[in-house]
């Protein structure tokens, strides 16, 4: 003999699975994010690893006038592509084809001015819309270095120490570690990874409450020999189960993609084992249940499917706020973060991805911080459905 809540659960679950269109959309939404993430990260990795492999392509017009400069460029791993005279349109065309990083035009009187120790003009043509600012700066640095070494030689020839014209010596130190950069990026990625908990059960939660009310079948159901809490729990768990399935699918897909990508190349880390991930999924089950019970408690008060959806589209955004606030205020990870639903899941996964040993307490806190409000919301929904005012409006 099945319990009443099980009967309601299986019926709601089956009915939702038959709504092929919304199920397809859910699947698309759930799978799209990790795939998109993979594509974007993969592009970044490719871009980050490109310069070392290929060097910098630079087109040079009038190279014959400055053989020393050309030698200097080649020495710095910049391959020079010699071109004949070109007008502005032709240069623009060449840059737009993205075959070269920039075009260096050595003006006609370069050699003459250089010999006479007048400033010899070179023009650097580049396309700032193209995404190769770093390599273009490399080219400029080589030009500056060449310029100052020639200046030093000339000064020495006149018996002046080159140090006189260099009162400052600039040395750059970058303290941004790969771990810190990784934390920032991974943190923003994780913010959305837990979103399916709030999306996947949504249509089931709305359909089984506001939808049932709109179709006028709720009164019949409430007049059956089943207690209100049995109805609420059945509907709640049906919506929650979909959310659990959605988020677990997404986490595993994201895990597969992030483990496969060589993230170290862009200074990120994904040190999550499959066991870690299973533990995170288990600790995240209450998040799905929390989302569903809040959705049911809100949607049951709406008179129609449409009304419920517009009410919930606002509620769905709320859980994102703590995560965004924490990253904007740049707060350090603290224990209290594990007591805030959603934020706790994000923090948990981020710390594991970083490779931190966090122990069992965060898992336990994450689990119960969502489970308790989930139960409270379900209790509220039951209390509300029992009330006479609600029965009258059904």
């Amino acid at each position, binding site marked *: 003999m099945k319990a009443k809540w099980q009967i309601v659960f299986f019926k709601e679950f*089956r009915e939702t699975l038959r709504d092929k269109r919304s199920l397809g959309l859910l699947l698309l939404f759930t799978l799209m994010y990790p795939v998109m993430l993979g594509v974007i990260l993969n592009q970044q990795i490719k871009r980050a690893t490109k310069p070392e492999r290929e060097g910098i392509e630079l087109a040079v017009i009038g190279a014959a006038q400055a053989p020393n400069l050309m030698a200097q460029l080649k020495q710095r791993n910049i391959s020079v592509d010699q071109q004949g005279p070109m007008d502005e349109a032709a240069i623009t065309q060449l840059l737009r084809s993205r075959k070269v990083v920039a075009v260096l035009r050595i003006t006609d009187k370069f050699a003459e001015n250089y010999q006479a120790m007048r400033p010899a003009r070179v023009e650097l043509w580049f396309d700032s819309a193209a995404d190769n600012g770093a390599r273009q700066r490399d080219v400029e640095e080589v030009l500056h270095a060449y310029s100052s070494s020639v200046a030093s030689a000339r000064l020495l020839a006149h018996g002046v120490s080159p140090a006189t014209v260099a009162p400052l010596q600039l040395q750059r130190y970058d303290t941004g570690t790969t771990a810190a950069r990784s934390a920032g990026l991974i943190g923003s990625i994780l913010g959305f990874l837990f979103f399916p908990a709030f999306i996947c059960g949504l249509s089931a939660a709305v359909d089984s409450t506001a939808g049932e009310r709109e179709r006028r079948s709720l009164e019949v159901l409430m007049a*059956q020999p089943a*207690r209100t809490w049995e109805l609420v729990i059945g509907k709640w768990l049906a919506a929650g189960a979909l959310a659990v399935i959605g988020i677990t699918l997404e986490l595993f897909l994201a895990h597969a993609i992030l483990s496969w990508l060589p993230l170290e190349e862009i200074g990120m880390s994904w040190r999550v084992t499959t066991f870690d991930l299973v533990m995170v999924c288990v600790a995240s089950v209450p998040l799905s249940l929390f989302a569903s019970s809040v959705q049911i408690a809100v949607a049951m008060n709406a008179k129609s499917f449409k009304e419920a959806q517009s009410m919930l589209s606002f509620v769905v955004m709320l859980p994102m706020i703590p995560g965004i606030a924490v990253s904007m205020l740049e707060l350090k990870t603290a224990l209290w973060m594990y007591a805030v639903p959603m934020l706790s899941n994000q923090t948990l996964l981020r710390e594991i991805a970083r490779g931190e040993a966090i122990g069992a307490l965060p898992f336990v806190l994450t689990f119960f911080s969502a489970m308790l409000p989930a139960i409270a919301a379900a209790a509220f929904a039951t209390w509300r459905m029992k009330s006479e005012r609600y*029965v009258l409006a059904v």
Partner: protein
Amino acid sequence: MIETKEVRKQFGAVQALGGVSFQARDGQITALLGPNGAGKTTLLRLLVGLLKRDHGSISVDGVDPAVDPMAVRRNMGLLTDQFGLYERLSTREYLTYFGELNGMAGPSLQSRIDEVADLLAMHDIVERRAKGFSQGQRIKVALARTLLHRPRHLLLDEPSRGLDVMSTRALRSALHALRNDGCCVIMATHVMQEVTHLCDDVIVIARGHTVAQGSPQQLCERTGIASLEDAFVSLVGTEEGIVA
């Protein structure tokens, strides 16, 4: 046997029921007559324990629905003015759902579904999903749900609306069978012909009060009017000040 005494129910300032007393006996079909807004829906909701009365007493086979609604509902079939079908479930799945909620299960539930389908002549729609059902088909499914768990009490709100001649006859014979089984049937309706043909007893309520109870013939005699319809109008009109 359903018995109410001086039942009152107030929503805020609105008096929905101001004193409803009647007896609906087993083995009888009792018609519940009343103009729109007379308080029929409120009364039916009180009888299944969805609402709680302010005053008076209700007894369904000796059980008070306000005290033990589950016991009352297990023995009650309720057909509301809305059918409450699920478009993505087939008729059989729909009936299985409500059968299970009423404590039925397994092969006995399935054979009971076939039995009810026989009774209401609806075998053609048992395996179909409710999407696209006609009004008549919808009410048949809802009726089947009402009868499924062999309730001793039936509360039917306009069960014959939208039914064609054949289905009306099938419904009528089903109601006769229930009466012969000794069920207590309360049927809200607006069709006087149905009342004369089918019902043993009539309760007339208007503006939240019972104004009369008796057989169709008694009502006619009491008002001195030959047609039940005119008698009804006069009962509702004289005591409530409504000029029909």
